[in-house]
């Protein structure tokens, strides 16, 4: 219960910091902070169009964030969300032409293909770590560049749209597109996938032996060996899941938003997802909430740029401050615990 309190306090402190520090920058830039924040909130939470954009942004963020949380629980730092997202999208789109024959099963297979695409890449990283002790931070970051180059080549080569005018892939058949669920907006059914994933992974983490083993490995590799936990298997499993959810996010983005592969379709969700997972204290069930919060900042900053000519990088300041405030609070709490124990 104590933990719950601390979690809420950390959350509040992080949000306050995320408001206070950028306010200082806004003052420096000669903008009125209150009016700016007011505009941000009234667009993102006050208009249906704005809020649906927030949710659309929160969908991939939630999926990747869940994956990040799962890996972090096992003590693995998966910074490869962007690359895994691309790989999932690529595999799904590559298979798209043959999915037409599966009728209504086509879309589920498309999404599963996304999961598999990301999961294979994630699993590879897990295997490298388990087998050779490779540092997953470095490997996942490098994989991001590999995936990006792969995408760049594919949409100018094998997967390019038959007209070969733009660097982009062929469009998805209408059966493979996620239906719109928000009337009059672009909000797609990916939101259901994200909500299901959050609930499912919360159960896996809190109610299964696999989830327990993840936590043991994350807390103490010595205890994991002592208890007979197969460290390699759990490491690979955690990374397959982690990469899989990022890959699923990729497939969802294609099927719900872009309908085809193109440059820059993976808009740097990976790092944002880390902040999202940290703020949710690695509880999958809380990830959708923190994703929506970041969606508010992201979509709101976009609106501010258009309406009040506040530069968009404000959102990066906000993200950085949130992560720092959160980590600072956790470190302070840990020191306090060490002093009183």
């Amino acid at each position, binding site marked *: 219960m104590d933990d719950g309190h601390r979690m809420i306090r950390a959350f509040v402190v992080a949000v306050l910091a995320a408001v206070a520090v950028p306010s200082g920058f806004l003052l420096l830039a000669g903008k009125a902070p209150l009016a700016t924040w007011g505009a941000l909130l009234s667009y993102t939470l006050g208009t249906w169009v704005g809020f649906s954009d927030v949710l659309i942004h929160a969908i991939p963020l939630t999926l990747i964030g869940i994956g990040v949380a799962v890996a972090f629980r096992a003590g693995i730092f998966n910074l490869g969300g962007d690359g895994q997202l691309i790989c999932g999208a690529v595999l799904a789109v590559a298979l798209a032409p043959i999915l037409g024959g599966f009728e209504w099963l086509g879309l589920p297979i498309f999404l599963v293909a996304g999961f598999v695409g990301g999961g294979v890449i994630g699993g590879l990283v897990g295997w490298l770590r388990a087998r050779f002790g490779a540092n997953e931070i470095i490997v996942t970051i490098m994989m991001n560049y590999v995936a990006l180059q792969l995408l760049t080549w594919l949409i100018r080569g094998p997967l390019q749209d038959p007209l070969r005018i733009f660097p982009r892939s062929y469009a998805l058949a209408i059966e493979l597109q996620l239906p719109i669920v928000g009337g009059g907006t672009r909000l797609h059914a990916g939101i259901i996938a994200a909500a299901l994933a959050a609930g499912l992974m919360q159960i896996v983490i*809190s*109610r*299964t*032996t*696999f*989830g*327990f*083993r993840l*936590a*043991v490995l994350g*807390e*103490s590799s*010595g*205890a994991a*060996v*002592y*208890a*007979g*936990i*197969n460290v390699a298997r759990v490491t690979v499993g955690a990374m397959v899941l982690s990469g899989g959810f990022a890959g699923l996010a990729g497939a969802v983005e294609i099927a719900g938003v872009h309908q085809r592969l193109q440059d820059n379709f993976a808009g740097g969700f990976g790092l944002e997802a880390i902040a999202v997972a940290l703020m949710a204290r690695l509880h999958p069930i809380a990830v959708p909430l923190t994703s929506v919060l970041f969606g508010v900042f992201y979509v709101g900053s976009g609106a501010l740029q258009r309406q009040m000519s506040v530069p968009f990088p404000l959102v990066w300041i906000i993200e950085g401050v949130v992560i720092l405030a959160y980590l600072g609070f956790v470190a302070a709490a840990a020191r306090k615990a060490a002093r*009183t*124990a």
Partner: protein
Amino acid sequence: MARAPLLELRGVTKRFPGVVANDNVSLSLAASEVLGVLGENGAGKSTLMNILAGLVIPDAGEIVLDGMPIRLATPRDAVAAGIGMVHQHFKLIDTLTVQENLALGDRRWGRRVVDYRGLSRTIGGLARELGMQFDPTARIDRLSVGQQQQIEILKALSRNPRILILDEPTSVLAPEERGGLFAMIARLRERGTGVILISHRMEDILETCERVIVMRQSRVVGGGAVAGLDRAALVRMVVGESLPRLEHRSAHAGRPVLTVEDLVLLRPNGLPAVAGASFELRAGEVTALCGVEGNGQSELIELIAGMRGPQGGRMVYHLGSGRHVGPMSPEALRALGVAHVPEDRLRYGLIGAFSLADNWLLTNLWNAIFAPGGWLRPEQGRIRCGQAIRAYDIRAGGPAARLRTLSGGNQQKFVLARELADTPQLIIAAHATRGLDVRTIDFVLRELLRARDRGAAVLLLSADLDEAWEVADQVMVMSRGHLRGPVPLAATTRHEVGHWMTGTA
């Protein structure tokens, strides 16, 4: 007793939220005197010493040095007052050399550029005087635990303290290293240093101290000149009652439970950690495995417990109705009835950040009661854990309490309760009593003997021959990877086994 006191504590009281750690504690120490401080875990010894080291500020009472009241608000004050402290857990940096560790935080050797030559000349001289080995360029992690402790002591002594506090210095030492430590204490005393020795071991106090004070429940409850006391009297003071002696009923060795043949384990550098060990553990028998730290006995335990695989040899477990050939995973072994009390409970056996109930699940995931078909049943963990808390009298806030809130002794009781819960047939216990107070040691050894008497085979790794002699039926020794024995206890002596341990026979 006619000597004027060098240091006096008068009526020192320290309260922490919810507990009084020191209640009106007084003591005095003369120059050239060795004062023992005895007490169970949690009796308030550490708080008292932390007050003297400037780490804890008392709420009431006086600290008097040479007849003058002083205030120790920071560790620096304590050093300036001439009080040196050697902590139980060493505060050395493993990857640095001896001289780098000695220079750390000590400005006498230069603020920007360290005068290592001057340092090793000065401290080397001190080491020679005290009969210690001193290699200034050796890395700390290459030294034995006993040598590391000597560096800690040298570090404290290099500041010329008039009072040296040693917190449980013998708990990590092998028997012959203990002798070296006592010899050093004797030399310090000749130099006029006052020494305070904290220990759980009555033998330490009887061998080295002139006077002793005994703490129980935050107070000084007794003490006096050691000359008039014996072990039983000390135990009575510490525990508040006399503990019945462990009665050593003769064992009824039954069928073999574990047969080990030519077991080989190589270290990463290619040298053998375990060089061809063969032995048999039988039901209803306690086998003590003795050895000086770092001679391969820890590795042997890890092999038997399934934590790593051997490069050669065979392990056959005769458990349940069948014959199982190892290596097997720790989880599979537990399902067959193998219990393992690991050497370092917080590194292996427990997770400090987990609740007690979750720590109970840690080694029970194979069990369908706790994890049927891959699903956790945390409520079962809570129920069993709650029963164990009552049965073993574990002082904890309940199954939901975090494990790290327990004292060391209670943590060890918890491990024991968990590992002995399903009447295991083979019990592997490594340093099961390390760092525990006399009452908890008694409890742990009794539980192991009880398990033996109902037919379990017990392998007890211990560096303490007295303990081995108290509970074991046979003894074996590891020295540089080679196994000697097992021999029945009656067929050997402590003296002989001590020689085997040091490789001098």
